């Protein structure tokens, strides 16, 4: 991802992370963007320095039991890029609610 503006889909994904949807599948659910687009975009954003990724705590995962999930967070440059994207795509702010609590999906 070189210098330049973000595409709309990438901006939507960045906006979802900013709104508290930090896990891949949550981002897929809230944005409606397919997984084959979301995950490559997350990797590109991480390479560009807009996102950082971490694994959740082992204790949380072991309680279930399952492997730890990866979650993403915005960096300072990510916040700046998102602010520019919001100016460019005016309706972006209205597309998603902020994450209040874990939603109960009607489907997987």
């Amino acid at each position: 991802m070189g210098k330049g503006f973000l595409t709309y889909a990438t901006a939507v994904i960045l906006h979802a992370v900013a709104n508290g949807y930090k896990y891949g599948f949550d981002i897929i659910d809230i944005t409606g963007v397919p997984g084959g687009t979301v995950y490559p975009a997350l990797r590109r954003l991480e390479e560009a320095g807009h996102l950082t990724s971490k694994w959740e705590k082992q204790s949380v995962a072991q309680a279930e039991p399952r492997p730890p999930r990866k979650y993403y967070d915005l960096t300072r440059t990510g916040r700046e890029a998102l602010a520019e994207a919001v100016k460019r795509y005016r309706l972006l702010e209205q597309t998603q609610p902020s994450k209040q609590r874990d939603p109960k999906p009607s489907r997987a």
Partner: protein
Amino acid sequence: MSLLSGCKRLFTRPHLRLIALVGVIVPRRLRADWRQEWEAELRYRETQLATWDRLDWRNKLDLLRRSTSAFWDALLLQPRRLEDEMFQDLRYGFRMLRKHKAVTLVAVLSLALGIGANTAIFMVVNAVLLRPLPYPESERLAIVASTVRRARVEVRSTSYPDFVDWRDQNPVFEQLAAFNSVS
């Protein structure tokens, strides 16, 4: 019985089997993390659905549908495989060249001679044969020559009066020009 149990295993949690299968094409360096990321999400979602008693065939099918997206993710990681392997091969190549200096010198000299000779020959061929004449529609240019019938010889030079007659009386050429070459 082992075949049956094998088939049964294959269809138990097919979404996780698919991730394991697709993971084969992910570059080795990234494979473990990639698999964990996808498997963790799928298993988390599976556990949530089971807790809410919603793990019916529709949701299982949806888990499988989600896992198919992993294929595109794995496919888009392929350039990193090429970079990794290419740089590894390049580093190995440089180490070998430094180790065998005599062979390297012979190879470099051979390449230099070959490239130099080819360049020289191409420059000549390009100037003489390939490069068009610096005139518009140069393919329409022609040299007009006269023939001495008795000797059946094509004479490339002609007299000025003949040139004037050709210029004024020919119905074929739009224009005629005379030139004198000095060797």
